[in-house]
């Protein structure tokens, strides 16, 4: 897991195009699969840190991550390539769907197909969260923060803004505190 390799500009664009086009039910699960497992551009931890910052910034977290990851490898060109790769494919599909919408919504085969994909996508997204959590091995107090975020969003249905801005300072504080305890200042 520790060996990473820098993508070329073309690889960056194509990798992001793949994430966008395959990202049913959101892109976070595919994004992790392609970047961490398939192409090894970043370690699990580097990816998770960028995604975490993407989460507290406005805008889609994977979109924010595409700007930051693109910039890290190829500057402004990289940010533009990654971001356009992420959006152009699905945008084209979406416009096609919108044009076909009347037929599309009526056809029973298409509806069942989408229904089956939706169930598989839900399983995929839950497994992605579990896998990231396992690979990152956060200390117990940060696991508690993660579970709080999950419960607050999935079961209590609290506004995301409230969840992010109340948990982010606590998570940052707990994590800095632990780092300084484990390696005290000289």
């Amino acid at each position, binding site marked *: 897991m520790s060996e990473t390799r820098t993508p070329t500009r073309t690889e960056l664009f194509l990798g992001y195009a793949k994430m966008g086009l395959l990202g049913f039910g959101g892109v976070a699960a595919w994004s992790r699969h392609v970047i961490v497992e398939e192409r090894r551009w970043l370690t699990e931890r580097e990816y998770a840190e960028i995604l975490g910052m993407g989460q507290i910034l406005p805008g889609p977290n994977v979109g924010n991550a595409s700007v930051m990851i693109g910039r890290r490898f190829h500057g402004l060109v990289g940010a533009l390539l990654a971001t356009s790769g992420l959006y152009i494919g699905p945008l084209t599909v979406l416009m096609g769907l919108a044009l076909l919408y009347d037929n599309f919504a009526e056809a029973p085969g298409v509806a069942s197909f989408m229904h089956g994909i939706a169930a*598989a996508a839900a399983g995929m997204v839950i497994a992605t969260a579990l896998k990231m959590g396992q690979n990152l091995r956060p200390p117990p107090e940060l696991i508690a923060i993660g579970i709080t975020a999950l419960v607050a*969003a999935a079961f209590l249905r609290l506004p995301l803004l409230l969840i992010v801005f109340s948990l982010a300072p606590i998570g940052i504080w707990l994590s800095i505190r632990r780092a300084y305890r484990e390696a005290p200042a000289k």
Partner: protein
Amino acid sequence: MSLLLQIFLAFATLSLVAVGGATAVLPEMHRLLVVVHGWMDDATFTQLFALAQAAPGPNILAASLMGWNIAGLGGLAMATLGMLLPAAVLAWYVAGATHRLRGARWLKPAQFGLVPIAVGLIGASGITLARAATTGWLTWVILAISFVFVWRTKYSPLWVLAGGGALGVALL
């Protein structure tokens, strides 16, 4: 003010409050497009959002579809730019700031402190998707197979998505 400019400004405002992406700003998007500007009715808004959910890609692309419905291709371009540009510019500057601070010893742990929130919220969106997608035993079986496959293997999840879709056509 021209319609296209109004569309750009409406979505640019949304972009800056969309912490967590499209689902987080859904109520505010509805308020702006349906109530404040009267660009579409309730039913159209709901249909467009559902269509965007069914398609691949970031859910934020619902904004592009709304723009298209309001003012054709120009509307699509303005809504997409408005939704993406402010957030992307902010992300660019934050990435620059963390790059400059990379020697600071508090930076890594500070970033790591945000990780569990990102992971927890991915889990939460999975659960929310599961609630909407599970309508009977077969969908639960598809979900469970997909979960185990993605959790335990490194194969491309494309196989379970395709398999899920095929099972849906065959049995649902």
